[in-house]
């Protein structure tokens, strides 16, 4: 049973128990083989665990796709200072709703992943930075963490091995930018969630100035399965460069939106047409954003060619991101939706870097003007020119995320913009 919809082609590794309320309970989780991976990991050397993750080819599921095992191996091998594992559970990329499901249906899977990850990087403390709006998820997770402590899976002397790993849930307070790893660190330290310049990288100078690793919820959720079954086992799915399974969050104009766990490399059009039951109301596919609002959108033609892995998305001029597939049918108002996304980025920009602070708000204003029929064709040139100045010029990539939808939509759907502009001009003349 999956949740909320089911598909036969799914490969449910981390989402196996979505839709099963009993699985939230630690007894059920343990009965079903839970915490066995932790037991196994604690019999290995930390580097042995990291090697297994390296062998699996698991890549970070938060959007950047950096190989997890390699990231872990950046941590100092002989700790002289405290290490920290940070679990990024600040899910807030528009279109993304997988981490919330992972945490509310299978909290112990995440906790187990966190404990194994902490062991591998020689950290004695895990902070799960959970999005502030997730009151209910926080409460489910809180109970699970308490139970894990009570049963001896977390805290001092885990399972009698002498290993100590603490877990603390830290609840955010409403800021998208805290999902950026250095912004998260700033926020966890009790500061404004402003991203920091890299280098230094978190593995050298992370939270509280100590070596830190930050992993997404979905990444850590996959870890127990890989440790238990081996890296090679994980590679039976996916592609050479993008192994394993991935949760695809499908939203928008499909008949059956939801989370589907599929092997990487799955054809996008197959996901939309078959897994999700096609476009709703018998409408036509117009555009897809395959990786969450920060990646370029593609038209139906490119969508038909797109394979959903890190490389396949790049081939059609977009990115896999966190695999949040936002589907738009032929009735969708592209300009309005782009404007709404840019409003979001303008609202969420931390305000440090000038191109982002000024550029995102300026972009939003121009788009709103166009949407209201007050735009001109020169506005499109201005948008293209000024968003170009927002790419690669800032501390983090939020600014780039403004440029991506704006530029891709003007390139692929210029007609939609022109129609609004023409309509406005005609209304003005009349």
């Amino acid at each position, binding site marked *: *049973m999956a*949740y*909320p*919809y*089911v598909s036969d082609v799914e490969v449910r590794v981390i989402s196996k128990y979505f*839709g099963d*309320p009993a699985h*939230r309970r630690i007894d059920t989780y343990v009965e079903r083989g839970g915490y066995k991976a932790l037991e196994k990991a604690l019999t290995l050397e930390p580097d042995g665990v990291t090697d297994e993750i390296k062998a699996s080819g698991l890549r970070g599921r938060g959007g950047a796709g950096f190989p997890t095992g390699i990231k872990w191996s950046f941590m100092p091998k002989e700790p002289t200072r405290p290490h920290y594992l940070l679990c990024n559970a600040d*899910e*807030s990329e*528009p*279109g*993304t*709703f997988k981490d*919330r499901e992972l945490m*509310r249906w299978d909290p112990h899977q995440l906790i187990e992943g966190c404990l194994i990850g902490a062991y591998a990087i020689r950290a004695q403390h895990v902070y799960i930075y*959970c999005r*502030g*709006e997730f*009151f*209910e998820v926080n*409460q*489910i*997770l*809180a*109970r699970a*963490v*308490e139970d894990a*402590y009570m049963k001896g899976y*977390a805290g001092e002397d885990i399972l009698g091995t002498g290993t100590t790993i*603490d*877990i*603390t*849930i*830290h*609840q*955010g*307070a*409403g*800021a*998208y930018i805290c999902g950026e790893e250095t912004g998260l660190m700033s926020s966890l*330290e*009790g*500061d404004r*969630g402003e991203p920091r310049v890299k280098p230094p990288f978190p593995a050298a100078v992370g939270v*509280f100035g100590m070596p830190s690793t930050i992993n997404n919820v979905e990444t850590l959720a996959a870890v127990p399965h890989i440790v238990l079954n081996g890296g090679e086992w994980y590679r039976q799915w996916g592609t050479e460069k993008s192994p394993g399974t991935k949760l695809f*969050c499908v*939203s*928008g*104009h499909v008949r059956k*939106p939801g989370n589907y766990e599929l092997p990487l490399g799955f054809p996008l059009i197959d996901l939309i047409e078959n897994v999700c039951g096609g476009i709703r109301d018998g409408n036509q596919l117009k555009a897809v954003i395959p990786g969450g*609002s920060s990646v370029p959108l593609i038209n139906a033609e490119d969508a038909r060619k797109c394979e959903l892995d890190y490389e396949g998305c790049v081939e059609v001029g977009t990115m896999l991101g966190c695999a949040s597939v*936002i589907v738009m049918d032929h009735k*969708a108002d592209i300009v*309005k*939706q782009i404007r*709404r996304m840019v409003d*979001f980025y303008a*609202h*969420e920009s931390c305000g440090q870097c000038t191109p982002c602070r000024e550029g995102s708000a300026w972009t939003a204003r121009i788009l709103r003007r166009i949407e209201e029929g007050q735009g001109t064709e020169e506005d499109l040139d201005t948008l293209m020119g000024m968003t170009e100045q927002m790419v690669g010029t800032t501390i983090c990539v939020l600014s780039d995320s403004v440029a991506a939808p704006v530029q891709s939509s003007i390139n692929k759907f210029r007609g939609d913009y022109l129609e609004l502009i023409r309509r406005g001009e005609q209304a003005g003349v009349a």
Partner: protein
Amino acid sequence: MSDVPLKNPGWAGNTGEFDLTEEEVRGEDFIGERPLHGGHSSVSATMPYMLIEKNPEAELFEGEYQERLKKILTRYPKKRAALLPVLSMVQELRGHVSPESMDRVAELLDLSPAYVRGVATFYTMYNKRPVGRHLVQVCTNISCNLCGADEVLAAFLECTSTELGETSEDGDFTVIEAECLAACGFPTCVQINSRYFENVTPADIPKIVEHLRAQVKKGD
């Protein structure tokens, strides 16, 4: 303390493909049960409730709240890191974070009041002024927007007779737009106080509003 369960016709996952109750999906038996003292220190920094009846004059960090505060402080190597959870505790009791509360928190954590103000204003969840008993946050970001979030927002405003961002005359409702709430597969998602309502359509709103009003009457 917690929100009273509501048979929301639009609760998430009502797809007809499986037979879970709303309580089972939400994890009813996990929710609304958190002790005020925060439980185990590992999870004391979570904010369990948003209270319907706020008391802007409530005493801060007393009794069980003081216990929770002490636990929170044990979880971080630096005192400042407790700032977000501590501000959340203030809001839990008082409903918003006033200048006076900021000053109090600054003193408590050895920070400057200006610093606390800077942090508090960075995060959207801290209300800088009082809000209604029910803070209705309608996601109008892309996935919900594609599926009619603007209509849901309009319906909420109409049903509660409020302007966007303003509090209704009876003090029951403040309706605002929210950014993506990470429930994109269940549009439109609406967060009301600490609870998510999913798959909300304009037709559901009179029932939801009626239910929320009833909660107020009960003095819950």
